[in-house]
Structure formats: C-alpha cells, structure tokens
C-alpha cells in the first residue's frame, strides 16, 4: 500500500483551475522530486496535502496510509506524521531555537538536529527565531525542526531557495537523513542537482502530472521542451 495516494485531485480558486485531476503516489521512505516552472501548482499541491486554510480539494481524494485525510485539519494531519517545511519560513518573536525544535517533545535534545543542517548548536540554541536570523539561517532551522519531528512524510517546498550553493550538500544530507529514518520526502525544487537524489520524479504543468519516472528521465523531459501542454506561454518562457 502506498504511503501517500492522491487520486484525481482538483482544486479551483475562483475561475482558475490550479490542480486539475492530478494523481500521484509515494511509498514509505521514497524521495519524490516534483519539478515544474513557477505557477504550475507545486506549492498548491503541498498546501492541499498539508490541509492549509483555504486549500480544500474541489474533487478527488488524498489517502495517507490508507486513510482519507482531505477533510482533516493541519494539526490532525501532522499528528498522523505529515509535515512541511515552507519555502519562506516565518519568524517568531520570543521563541528560542531550542524551544522551536522541541515544540512537541520537550525532552528532545535539539543539538544534533542543528548540527545536521550545518549550524553550531552552541551558537544557535539560545537565539530567537526572529528577525535577527538571516533567511538562510531560518531555513536551516526549519529543516532541523522537520528532522526533530521524525515524520512519516515530509514536504520540502523549495528547500534550496535562499541557501547558498555551498550549502546544497546540507540539504541533501537532510533529505537522506529523512529517507534513512523511513520518512518519505516530497521534494519541490527547481534545482536538477537536488532532484537527482530522488528515487522518482514527476513534472507538474498546469496542475497536472505530465511526466513521471526516474529523476534523470524527468529532468531530461523538463529540459527538452517535449511537454506539449507547455509549448506556449509561461512554461516555455521559464523553462531552463
């Protein structure tokens, strides 16, 4: 049984169809890269899986470990083992890094998780998760917090954005650590070098999965302009 099974999912915002009859499945400990240009529905799919406010499917089902979850609220899905790292993590006044990493488990030692994302625990644990942290630091702390949760499915929405090139290996380490612990990862990215670490990949275009296969196959498809649905307008202009 697939850990995540999305069947014929649609989502409409006003007159615009953002997700259109999309199906996707993921196994336990599978890293699945989701490629696609801006505005094709990648983040929307993440919000639908997570159950964010205002993101309720207009059709279709989302099954997690065999249970339909599309009517459950965010925290209920999180308690089942689904979590998400946002593309742009928010900041919190008055909450320290140590507190943030132990929100749901006060007995956890947060230090190893910071080390895994390349941050020295001694320098960061007492700092606040506020505007004194840079965007890149905040992003690393978000990734560390995901590791500390030990989820069953982690959604990473462009984990590489805002992080310098030299640090890509830290992100790859996080993804590998998730996989090693049995956690599946839905990896939304534009970067081929990150997508290539996935077990499988899919390309999304105009809310549909237009290609699935090995990361190499999908990356090649993405760059080859073979996607007929995207031969015009935005996607063709933005394709690498």
């Amino acid at each position, binding site marked *: 049984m697939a850990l995540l099974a999305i069947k014929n999912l649609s989502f409409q915002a006003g007159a615009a169809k953002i997700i259109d009859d999309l199906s996707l499945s993921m196994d336990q400990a599978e890293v699945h890269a989701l490629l696609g240009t801006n505005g094709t529905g990648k983040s929307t799919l993440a919000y639908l899986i997570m159950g964010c406010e205002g993101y309720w499917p207009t059709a279709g089902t989302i099954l997690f470990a065999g249970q339909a979850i599309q009517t459950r609220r965010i925290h209920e899905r999180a308690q089942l083992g689904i979590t998400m790292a946002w593309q742009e993590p928010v900041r919190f006044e*008055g909450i320290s890094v140590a507190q943030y990493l132990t929100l749901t488990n006060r007995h956890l030692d947060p230090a190893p998780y910071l080390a895994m994302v390349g941050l020295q625990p001694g320098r960061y644990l007492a700092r606040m998760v506020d505007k004194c942290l840079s965007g890149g630091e905040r992003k690393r702390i978000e990734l560390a*917090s995901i590791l500390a949760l030990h989820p069953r499915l982690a959604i990473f929405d462009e984990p590489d954005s805002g992080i310098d090139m030299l640090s890509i290996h830290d992100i790859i380490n996080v993804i590998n650590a998730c996989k090693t612990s049995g956690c599946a990862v839905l990896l939304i990215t534009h970067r081929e070098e990150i997508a290539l670490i996935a077990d499988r990949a899919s390309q999304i275009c105009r809310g549909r999965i237009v290609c699935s296969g090995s990361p190499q196959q999908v990356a090649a498809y993405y760059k080859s302009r073979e996607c007929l649905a995207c031969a015009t307008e935005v996607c063709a202009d933005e394709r690498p």
Partner: protein
Amino acid sequence: MNALDQLMQAFGAAGGDRAVLADSATAHLVADGHTILSARQVEGVEVEAHETAAGISAKVRVRQGVRLKNPVHLCFGVLHKKGSQHISMDVRLEKNSAASFVAHCIFPDAEQVIHAMDAKVVIEDGAELRYAETHFHGIHGGVEASPKAVVSIGKNGRYFGDFTLITGRVGRLAIDYTVEAGENAVTELTARVFGHGSDSIKITEKVTLAGEQARGLIKTRVALEDEASAEITGITEGNAAGARGHVDCMEIVKDQAVASAIPIVRVTNPLAKVTHEAAIGSVDKRQLETLMVHGLTPEEAVDIIVRGILS
C-alpha cells in the same frame, strides 16, 4: 501568619525570590498598603522610606561611582480585598553609578484596590538604571493601577524600563511614563500586558530625545482576549542632531477585544530621525500554520505565539 510573611508568600508565588530579604548584601523595601514592613540599605545605596498621611514616601539614592552587584528589590502590595496604596518614589543615581531595580507589585486577592505610583527618577551623567516591574493583580480584575514616572537621563546615561503584567487579570491599568534623554543617552521602555475579561489597559509612554546622539526605543506588546481593551500611545520626539528613536507596538486581539495604537513621532531637528511601526490583529496565519504542521493544536499554537510576544 503576619503581613510580611503573607506578602512574601504572594511575592514568591508571583515569581519573586523570597531569599533576598534575608540577604544582608541586598537592599530592599517592602510595603503592604501604607505600612512599611521591611527595608534595608547597603553600602553605596540609601533607602529612606516613610509612612505619611497620603501613603508611602520613599527615597533611593545610589552614590556616585557605585555599581551595585545585587539588584535593589522593591515589593509593594495590598493583601486585603479592598484598599489603596499611594507611593511616592524619588530615585537618584549619581554620576557613573549603576544599579538594577526589581519591583513586584502584588495584589493577590484584590477586588477593589487602588494602586498609584508616582516616581521621579534622575539618572546623572554616565549612570545606568535597569528597572524591571512585574505586577500581579489576582484573578478578580479589581485593581486600578496607575504607575506614573518622570525620568531624566544625563549625558551618556542609560535607562531601561521593563513593565510586565501577563499573569492573572489586569483590571484597570493606566501607565504614564515620560523620559527625557540627554546627550548620547540611551533609553528603552518595554511593556508587556495580557488583558482578559473586561480589563482596560491604557499605556502612554513618551521619550524626548533632547541631547545630541540620544537614542530611544518604546516597545509595547499587548495581547487581549474576551472583552478587554487597550489604547497604546507611544510618543517619541527627536529634538537634537543625531537623535534616533523608534516606536514599536504589537497587539494581538482575540474574541471581542478591542485594541488601538497611536504612535506619535515628532522631529524638530533635521538631523534627528524617529520611526515607528504598529501591528494590530489576530494571530498571524502563517505563524499559526507553521506551528500546526509541527502537530500543535490551534489553541496550543495561539498560546505559544502570544506567550512568545509577551516574553
């Protein structure tokens, strides 16, 4: 149990360290209503307190060049359900001295209590005062508190004021602080208040940056629920070259609570700069969702966000 023991029990429950009264190296003043229960001065610090017909009159003077290791503890309260307390404070830090004051104002059973504080604080050149004031007004909302202070800071002086009332009810609170900062002086005024029920909160803080290179920050954090209300006025004037000021107000409202913020910035010297920011609203949706994806319920998430901004 005598009044001092009762007040100390409440002091401990409100987060105070009861051992400080027994410490001969720590200056203190403890009063219940208009009765002085205990006072101590230490070398370099004079603490004079008198019971007067109008209330309590206290003078605290930190001598020139004295830099206190231990904070001066002030504990004021009314133990009865009804009563009043009027305190007149005269604080002076002489040149190049440094001290921190920890004040607790405790009214654990108050149903109809008036607490009025009128403080005059003079911080001479090069001196530094850190003043942290924590209030506990009990659970009935029966306190009417009006702390008022006029602070003047000399050249290179520093004043940091921190007011906290985040446990229990507020009742009616009217803070009125005025600070005038001289040349190269620094001041920061922080207030954190959590209002519930029908609590009414009015905070007016004014910083006048009178000297060149003076710097000031007014930071206010208020959370409101039920039918509580708050009106926050932060005024900063930049009147000298190089003066820098900022007013920062954040209020979170829930239920039928009503909040308003009035930042007033005024500059009379073209080389001064004063800025302000104010945010009022419900809990930030993205913050809420971020905590919920970690598995916290919405109620737990709101609690953590509110406690965070008030911490």
